[in-house]
């Protein structure tokens, strides 16, 4: 089958907190009576993946290999599409395309912005 992706499969503290929050779409959608099978960020996630591949920053095959490995290990208990998002961010952090503390800070800023609306 596929070759190893060389992704670091160590746990990432920031993503672990999300994984354990049990706020995945398959839990939330029925709670709010929403029938849309996908969360609002799903298409944007696909576009991020395409953009990263188009720019050469993260080739599709590398990302998919890493996603497969992480899906069977670190994020095996997380449903799709949250698993795709966590795996993508995991790979980006592993490859230093993102910094974990920068990401944590930005997440706080984004939440503040969204909640102020």
């Amino acid at each position, binding site marked *: 089958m596929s070759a190893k992706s060389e992704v670091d499969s160590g746990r990432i503290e920031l993503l672990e907190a999300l994984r354990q929050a049990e*706020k995945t779409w398959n839990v*939330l959608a029925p709670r709010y009576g929403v029938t849309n099978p996908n969360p609002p960020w799903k298409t*944007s996630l*696909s*576009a991020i993946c395409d953009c990263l591949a188009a720019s050469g920053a993260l080739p599709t*095959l590398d990302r*998919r290999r890493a996603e497969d490995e992480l899906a069977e290990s670190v994020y095996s208990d997380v449903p799709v599409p949250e698993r795709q998002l966590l795996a993508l*961010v995991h790979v980006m952090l592993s490859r230093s395309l993102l910094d974990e503390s920068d990401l944590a800070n930005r997440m706080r800023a*984004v*939440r503040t912005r969204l909640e102020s609306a």
Partner: protein
Amino acid sequence: MSHTHPPGNGGADQGHAAPMVEEITDFEVLEIAVRELAIEHGLFTAEDHRRFTEWTESIGPAAGSRLVAKAWTDPAFKARVMEDAVKACKEIGVDWAEPTGFGTPSDYMNLRVLEDTPTLHHVIVCTLCSCYPRPLLGMSPEWYRTTNYRRRLVRWPRQVLAEFGLILPPEVEVRIEDSNQKCRFMVLPVRPEGTENWTEEQLAEIVTRDCMIGVALPRLDRTADVHPVHKARRPVQSSTHSGEARHERKE
């Protein structure tokens, strides 16, 4: 906004699905944060992202259904499909060069259409990752991406097809085509008997996504991918002028 939701149902109106959950999840926040940082780091631009998002939301299996229906009814078109499928796609309004002018990195501009016969059935898979003819079929279904499907289909094709409810007789050869980085595939199923006088539009309705992957066969009673058409509550009468129609509704 005066619109309020009754307590206890999480925002769903009686009999209507709520448009979206009423809380901001960490996953939503994470996706936005990653996108913003990636743009700031120069990995891609906001315009790139907007363009790919727009393209992703514009694709679906309907284009593939139209291609199959046209190939069934137009032998010359079918010959062009078998000769150069990417070029033939333009005749049904699909340009594989979208959205960048040279396609997407995940959809190499090389498509081969696999023609089924009464004794040969094709199924597509991507054992390596999740290669899929997105310009024609839209985003791949989740099961197509699973290692379960990808690993088992090539080893035990008839067993996996049976799990989709497709049991083929032993005299039908099953051929699995493994997509790769250089080529995409889709299946041209056999036109079902009983559709001889059907229009292209009628035929397209029975060519579902799964038929073009190869895990199902077109059936006269099967239109799973076709969205229901909701009748207008106050249809305009085609035999009257618009002004008269408005007048009638006022009364």
